């Protein structure tokens, strides 16, 4: 399999807090790898052939790459902001393309149907116009001024509110969501989706959060997010084809899908095609 430009990107390979000296085996884009910590407490990642792979520890996770990343791991400034709680949600394995998992994360129109009475509810199904751009300097996809009515937007929300969202795609299998923060209207809650591509049609999804919420027990925060992602999984494992179609014609977008359209275009422009289907079949 051609890994294309995605070979030189950073990917999450595990939670740093769960590492111990016994290496655990996982995979990156079809290649078996081992993740562990050495005696000095430093995370190490090695390929099965014994090659040491690049490592970063950031946002609760260990990151690595099969190639040689020419860019540093993307920044999330909110990860250094005092007063936030950082939530390692854990892992959800999904039998789908890593790119489909990201695209679903960028989508709000499914909230009333997939996350019924949590992130959305009929008859509040309309997606109002929002702004989408590919920012050339950062080389990231951004969607802003995304608004949606939500019955229970977060664990810290009581009752329905119109939530505002901003989405960012800083890497082909990662997205960062900024969301209205019910207890602190001037700040944004940060919810991320870090996707580890195990194969073109199989991935481990590692959600992570940086929230202003001093009240909700950690277990409840984790359960809330896991509930949401398990609902998404029931969709992601039943989309045909499993790979994300990059050529127009295979699927029909509308105005509500502009983020997805920009994401697909950005992937194609960069030859980020691991997990993508290029020709309609």
């Amino acid at each position: 399999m051609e890994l294309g430009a995605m070979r030189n990107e950073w990917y999450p390979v595990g939670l740093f807090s769960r590492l111990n000296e016994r290496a655990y085996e996982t995979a990156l884009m079809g290649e078996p790898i081992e993740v562990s910590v050495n005696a000095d407490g430093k995370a190490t990642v090695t390929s099965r052939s014994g090659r040491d792979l690049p490592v970063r520890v950031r946002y609760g996770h260990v990151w690595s790459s099969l190639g040689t990343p020419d860019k540093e791991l993307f920044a999330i400034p909110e990860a250094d902001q005092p007063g936030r709680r950082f939530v390692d949600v854990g892992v959800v394995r999904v039998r789908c393309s890593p790119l489909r998992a990201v695209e679903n994360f960028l989508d709000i129109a499914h909230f009333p149907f997939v996350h019924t009475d949590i992130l959305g509810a009929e008859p509040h199904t309309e997606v109002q116009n929002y702004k989408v751009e590919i920012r050339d300097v950062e080389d990231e996809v951004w969607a802003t001024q995304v608004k949606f009515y939500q019955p229970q937007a977060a664990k810290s929300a009581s009752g329905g509110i119109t939530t505002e969202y901003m989405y960012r795609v800083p890497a082909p299998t990662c997205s960062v969501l900024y969301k209205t923060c019910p207890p602190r209207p001037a700040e944004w809650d940060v919810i991320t989706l870090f996707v580890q591509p195990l194969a073109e049609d199989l991935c481990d999804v590692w959600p992570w959060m940086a929230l202003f919420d001093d009240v909700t027990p950690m277990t409840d925060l984790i359960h809330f997010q896991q509930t949401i992602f398990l609902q998404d999984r029931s969709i992601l494992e039943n989309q045909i084809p499993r790979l994300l179609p990059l050529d127009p014609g295979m699927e029909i977008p509308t105005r509500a899908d502009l983020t997805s359209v920009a994401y697909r275009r950005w992937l194609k422009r960069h030859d980020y095609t691991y997990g993508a289907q290029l020709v309609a079949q």
Partner: protein
Amino acid sequence: MPARTPAGPIALWRSASGRPAASADRCPHRGMRLSHGFVRGEALSCIYHGWSYAQAGNCLRIPAHPGLVPPETIRVATQQVQEADGVIWVAVGEPTDQPPRFEGLVPLRSLMANAGIAAIEAAAGAKSGADGLLRTSGNSTELRLLLVAQEQDRTLIHVLLKGDAPVSQRIFASRIAEALRRAAEDVQAKGIA
């Protein structure tokens, strides 16, 4: 519910007024299986974004844009459906004949076997007759089985009984069909068929 014909996977559904319909099992928006969807009134809606489709296949509504009339180009392929004596028939292409009638019989249940038709016939010790039905019996209960080949050596077995069979015979018939399925799966696993 999901079903399959030689033309591929379909979503088989019954509208609120009772009319059965079959459409391709894929929403053209984001590829989600329509057999996971829900029926409201005379329309089938996709579970992902709620796009709803008429029995003729045209898209009726896109909930993200409630004011939009979906263009005629957004549609799912459909197949003809007929209901006869409690059995739903789906046509591939344009059929010239009516589906067969099984007068005096009523459907009891359907089960999926991980075995091909040959393995089921071997386990039953009988072949399907000219009417397409395999006859088998046990405990003085006579069963008729309608076998429909699925992908990868799987078979959907529809069990039919005489219309006047009492409840006790129906229970027997159900057990006989399950025993036959197990036997057929054994035959298939041993590669005898």
